[in-house]
């Protein structure tokens, strides 16, 4: 049951009326194209949302970064798959769309095409709905709450130069139609974020936090504590130094565990990379790649977070894929076209940055399974190392298994105790297999953080979550 506080609606609470209205014309388009092409599908998207941002100096209400509304028409001319993206499909421009697709599929290049078959789909008609839980606050109410948090935070210390908090609320309507499928999904998500800038003399530092949930009400509630903790950390970081380069034992927080899962073996098992001969993991199927303590999953259905959709942009239902089982690499993840080329089953990982871009194999919710160790015991076991926290960024190297993971900070541990020293930033690097095999303890505690964005190379950004337990491992910090 969705309750609204009216006056500046932040959500409609239902599947896009606009897309519903487009169904007959899309059906007509599929029928017309179906006369000529062995495969035809249309992905229709209507994603709306608002990002409300408040800091000391200003307030901004802008569309969510993933706002989009448009269509992708995909056809196969028995040689090459072609796609036409547009933000208008109506009776009037149907002839123009048909002509543009005809022109696109007639492109004759000098380079031969790959050999690929037609996508076969099992018939499926289904509708999925997941509404935002609790009270859906209006824009003015959200601004008032966020302003209160910022003012409260600024009062806590004269060293806080600026405090910012925001909440991005999105509602996603997607429709996938083909000769065999007719799927609809509606779901929502909220991403609260906190940022604090601190300064002492000419020494400036910052701290940030971000998380996600399917409730504006809960998100706004938790943001208060998040901003307070971020402010505390920002002040602490004023005493931070950069770490001395070296090889250290570390314990990771769930955010860094997720970053490692994502960069180490997430990108490495995206099976469109197998098709391109860009992933070493292809040669390591059913072989040991990590410590026996490591179990890793990915899937829109594997955890409930920002990437928990019901079907992907290829119209394939969400999966929970076990990638690493007790240290053995057992499966990759794939989009429909890559699976077709490899002769495997797609895993529901075909995702687009927007309707304007191609679908690739992409991660969704990626994480290591919880273990049996206690975090306190893991810390106690460190002679000289760090507890590493808060993801900044990372970079994959699926062919050669290099890894770079940048964390915002680390707390020094000597002889099993925190020394009070804090280092920032912490840039970890090394060889994926060395890192994963160095994992010597996995905690019971477990958390998936639903506020990340992931690029493929340096483009094609999609929202992802990652996480897991705390890990004890050995890494190069430099």
């Amino acid at each position, binding site marked *: 049951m969705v309750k609204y506080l009216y006056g*500046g609606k932040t959500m409609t609470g239902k599947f896009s009326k*606009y897309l519903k209205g487009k169904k007959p014309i899309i059906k007509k388009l599929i029928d017309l194209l179906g006369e000529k092409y062995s495969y035809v599908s249309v992905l229709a998207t209507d994603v*709306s949302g608002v990002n409300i941002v408040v800091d000391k*100096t*200003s*307030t901004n*209400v*802008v*569309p969510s970064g993933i*706002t989009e*509304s*448009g269509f992708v028409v995909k056809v196969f001319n028995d040689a*090459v*798959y*072609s796609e*036409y*993206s*547009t*933000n208008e499909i*109506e009776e009037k421009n149907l002839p123009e769309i048909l002509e*543009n697709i005809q022109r696109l*599929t007639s492109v004759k*290049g*000098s*380079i031969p*095409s*790959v050999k690929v078959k037609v996508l076969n789909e099992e018939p499926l008609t289904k509708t999925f709905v997941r509404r935002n839980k609790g009270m859906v606050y209006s*824009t*003015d109410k959200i*601004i008032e709450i966020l302003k209160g948090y910022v003012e409260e935070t600024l009062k806590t210390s004269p060293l806080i*130069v600026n405090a910012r908090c925001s909440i991005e609320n999105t509602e996603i309507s997607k429709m996938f139609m083909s000769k065999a499928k007719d799927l609809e999904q509606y779901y929502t998500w909220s991403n609260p974020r906190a940022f604090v800038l601190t*300064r002492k003399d000419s020494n*400036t530092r910052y701290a940030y936090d971000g998380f996600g949930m399917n409730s504006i009400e809960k998100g706004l509630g938790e943001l208060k504590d998040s901003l307070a903790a971020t402010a505390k950390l920002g002040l602490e970081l004023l005493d*931070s130094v*950069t770490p001395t*380069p070296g090889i250290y034992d570390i314990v990771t927080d769930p955010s860094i565990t997720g970053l490692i899962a994502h960069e180490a073996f997430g990108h490495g098992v995206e099976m469109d990379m197998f*098709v*391109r*001969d*860009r992933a*070493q993991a292809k040669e390591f199927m059913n072989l040991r790649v990590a410590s026996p303590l490591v179990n890793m999953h990915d899937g829109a259905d594997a955890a409930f977070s920002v990437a928990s959709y019901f079907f992907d942009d290829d119209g394939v239902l969400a999966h929970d894929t076990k990638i690493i089982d007790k240290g053995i690499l057992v499966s990759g993840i794939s989009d429909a*076209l890559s699976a077709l080329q490899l002769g495997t089953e797609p895993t529901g990982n075909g995702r687009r940055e927007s309707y*304007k871009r*191609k679908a690739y194999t992409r991660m969704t919710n990626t994480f290591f399974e919880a273990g049996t160790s206690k975090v306190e015991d893991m810390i106690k076991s460190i002679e000289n190392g760090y507890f590493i926290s808060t993801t900044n*960024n990372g*970079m994959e190297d699926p*062919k*050669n298994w*290099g*890894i*770079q993971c*940048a964390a915002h900070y680390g707390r020094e541990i000597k002889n099993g105790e925190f020394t009070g020293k804090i280092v*920032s*930033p912490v*840039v970890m*690097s090394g*060889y994926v297999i060395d890192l994963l095999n160095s994992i010597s303890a996995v905690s019971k505690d477990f958390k998936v953080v639903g506020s990340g964005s992931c690029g493929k190379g*340096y*483009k094609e950004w999609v929202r992802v979550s990652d996480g897991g337990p705390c890990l004890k491992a050995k890494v190069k910090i*430099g």
Partner: protein
Amino acid sequence: MIKQIIKSLKENLEVTDWLISETTIESSQAFYVLQRLETTRVSNTCEYLVTVYHKFTDNLVEYLGSSSFAVSHKLRKNELAEKISEAVFASKFIKNKTYNLVKGGKRKSWKEKEYEDAPFVLLDKIANVFTSEANEHAKFNALELFCNKTITHVVNSQGVDLSKTLYQVNVEAIPSFDGPRQKVELYKYFTYKTIDFEAIKSDAVTALKEVTARYSAEKIKGVTNIDVVLKDLDVAEFFKTLIEDYSYVSVYKQNTDKKIFDDIQKDAEGDLLKIAYVPSSKADAFDKDGVILKPVDVIANGILASYYGGNQYAQYLKMEPTGIMDTIEVEKGATTLVRMCHKPHLEIIALSGIQIDMYSGYIGGEVRLALYYDGRDYMPVSGLSFSGNIDKCLKNIILSKEKTQVANYQGPKYVKLPGMDIL
């Protein structure tokens, strides 16, 4: 559509001012797998970002609230009116310091020269340049080519009516080398504003040479501290990060405590920096608010010479807006690459991604491929990382005489950062 939006905005009497940005993109895309065509795409879209402004007074203080919404498809009159009303409603609670929208003059438009070839003909020719340089061992496992025509049209309630048409080709290329040992690859991303097939060929040849070098790269041994030479995109990233906190918005939000005339390179012993923001081309004439772009020297002679940025925050700081630009120009140095590299050094060819934190002063990254010169010989190395302190780098930085033009950067092709830690 734009006329319909303007009509609806004028009908809402609570709208003080408005701004519409219309973006039309014609994008042709070709995807190659193992040097064979896999997918072709065309994306033809036209989208609008509408910003509604509402001026109001509270406790005798004047505020200008604003709220934006996107329009991606045709809307009925009542649907559009509802979106505008919602934006006005939100604006009433946004107590931002007041400022004036950019004032317009005559309607004006700028156009870059269109490519001679039709998009897919051009993409096929470029793909051919890359694939024809491949050999038995070194080839491109993946090539993704994008040819984009972007028309940006900005209109506001104060008479701004400007449009620009820009062209760009982007190529993501993955060169790889296959031999008896473990296969290797590198990641390359090229941006071409104009088409010069010789330059594209040179990029393809260099990419294949570099991945061939990675194949024979070894771990570096016995080196803990050395001068590091960065090139091309890493140099661009370094300089962009160096000046990002000197924008009006950053200064207003106190992200930096640096003042105009502050020394950015204290006790400099190396080259003094001159870094400017410039439009990416003559046709790239205005920004999202309709500010006509003006080149601005942000750093000159190692001194912070000017802040830069858009309309709103320029007015808050009582400065002239320069417009929001994304291309930087850096003055070249006097040292040739040969002179720069006569002592032992590490020339970085590929990083996982350069890591720079201006607040802590950290610079570093994981090195996927570098050329190590020990004073006698060059050898390709990988599997290491470098790190250092930005202030120390700036004190002794050396800029190359050789220039480069890569995505949104014109300036020295190489910079030497002294005394970096190696692990």
